[in-house]
């Protein structure tokens, strides 16, 4: 009996330490906030443009993820070609890459001196860094792997007989994908979208490296928090709380999948 109690404690104590470790910073953020001054903090000129830019760019990044990532996930899920496992591994690289390294890589590719960016400048007279487009690039770069892996996982769980049957009934691969596969993995697409969007919203390193930091144009909410921390900690806390609230709402939307 005693031994049993001890062995349970051996599991419970680390589990509670883990919970405390995750929750203490969030509670501290709530305690440090100046709640009465919150409306004034949120009305500051740096806060609203940053949130607006974040919502706009992350939505665009999510649309790109869905348009490009869903077909890629399907090909990865069904292809038996011998390069497929390699492609899957390559898609995972940005997932484990430090975001700031991703930012450097984006500069090397799409910067004015970059492999693609130089041509773009010569042909179109336009360069990507320091524009909201660069923010979308950075966010898509870090979020797309999350989306592809989540959606591919649920697509692999789909019984091949469904798409096999659609094919024998004469449906083209595109039609099978559109009318059979996508509706059946809709929950997977939803959770992949939420993950990718949350990752894009939190993007910092690649954004500040590749897109720079200009209020209203490339200063997203995480960048605004970082900059405000030194000049105006209360504004930083207020903006952090808004982002915490958004995260909780996203988690709430996923309740059916994760909180069962």
């Amino acid at each position, binding site marked *: 009996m005693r031994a049993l109690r001890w062995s349970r404690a051996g599991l419970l104590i680390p589990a509670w330490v883990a919970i405390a470790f995750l929750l203490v910073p969030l509670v501290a953020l709530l305690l440090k906030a100046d709640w009465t001054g919150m409306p004034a903090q949120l009305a500051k000129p740096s806060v609203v443009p940053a949130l607006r830019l974040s919502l706009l760019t992350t939505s665009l990044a999510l649309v790109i993820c869905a348009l490009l990532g869903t077909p890629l996930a399907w090909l990865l899920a069904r292809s038996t070609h011998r390069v497929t496992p390699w492609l899957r591994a390559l898609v995972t690289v940005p997932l484990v890459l430090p975001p700031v390294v991703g930012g450097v890589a984006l*500069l090397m590719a799409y*910067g*004015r*001196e970059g492999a693609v960016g130089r041509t773009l400048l010569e042909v179109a007279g336009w*360069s990507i*860094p*320091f524009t909201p487009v660069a923010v979308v690039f950075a966010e898509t770069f870090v979020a797309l792997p999350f989306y592809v892996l989540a959606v591919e996982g649920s697509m692999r769980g789909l019984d091949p007989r469904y798409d096999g049957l659609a094919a024998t009934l004469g449906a083209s691969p595109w039609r099978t994908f559109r009318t059979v596969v996508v509706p059946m993995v809709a929950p997977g697409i939803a959770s992949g979208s939420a993950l990718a969007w949350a990752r894009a919203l939190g993007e910092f390193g690649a954004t*500040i490296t590749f*897109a*720079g*930091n*200009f*209020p209203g*144009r*490339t200063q997203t909410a995480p960048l605004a928090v*970082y*900059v405000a*921390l*030194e*000049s105006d900690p209360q504004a930083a806390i207020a903006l952090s709380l808004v982002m915490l609230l958004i995260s909780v709402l996203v988690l709430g939307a996923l309740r059916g999948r994760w909180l069962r």
Partner: protein
Amino acid sequence: MRPQLCRHARFAAPVAAPVAAPVAALAVAALALTGCSAATGSQAKAPTRHTVVVLAASSLTESLTAIAADFEASHPGTDVQLSFAASSTVVTQVNQGAPADLIALAGTSSMGPLEKGRIAKNGIRSMAANTLEIATPPGNPGTVNSLADLSRPTLKVVLCAATAPCGKAAVKTLTAADVVAHVVSYETDVRATLAKVRLGEADAAIVYHSDVVSARGRVHGVQIPASVNQRLDYPLVRLTNDPTTAELMTYVLSDQGRKRLRDYGFLMP
């Protein structure tokens, strides 16, 4: 002999007999983690390392790294640990309790938010001075020849964030010259600002003269007239009474230290 061989050693000494074993084991583990050796009995042979933690303004990156290497070479057994960031970040970190023995800041006004209680007695010295300069990529592709050119809308200008001393000084200079620069980004510190020019992504940035010199030809410098330029004094602030830290401070202010600073484009206070 220095009074404190290792700043953590005092924790190991006054331990009562019954609890000695586990506590001593913890202490040894802690000492191992901090890179200090426990000077007990036969283990006393291991050389003690005197670690000095320095947080410094990012404009000092090359010069202070070189000075620290000189110091370590001429003072065997010392280990100078350096970390560079915007002066405002350094001060925020120190106020929040970051372990540091010595800090070096750009501009005396950077010391404003520093909690006075953290400064050691007589711990402030002026180590160098700096002025602003425009940096462009080599060959000056944007043909920037003066401050007024920075207002051209086709130009991509990068400044330091207004929280960093280089950002504050740049705003003062631009205001004095009555120039509204076409800014595309406010970077977190002067080195992030310089990097955008070195990578060729920005056409011009307002940085320190020492940054242009330290870049050793990888950027092109355009002078800013003295009438609108800012001069920043670099305070060196001692936070602890550790003797090795005091030695390092003296070394930075010595002729050898000053020579290094001059080599990297700093002015003398």
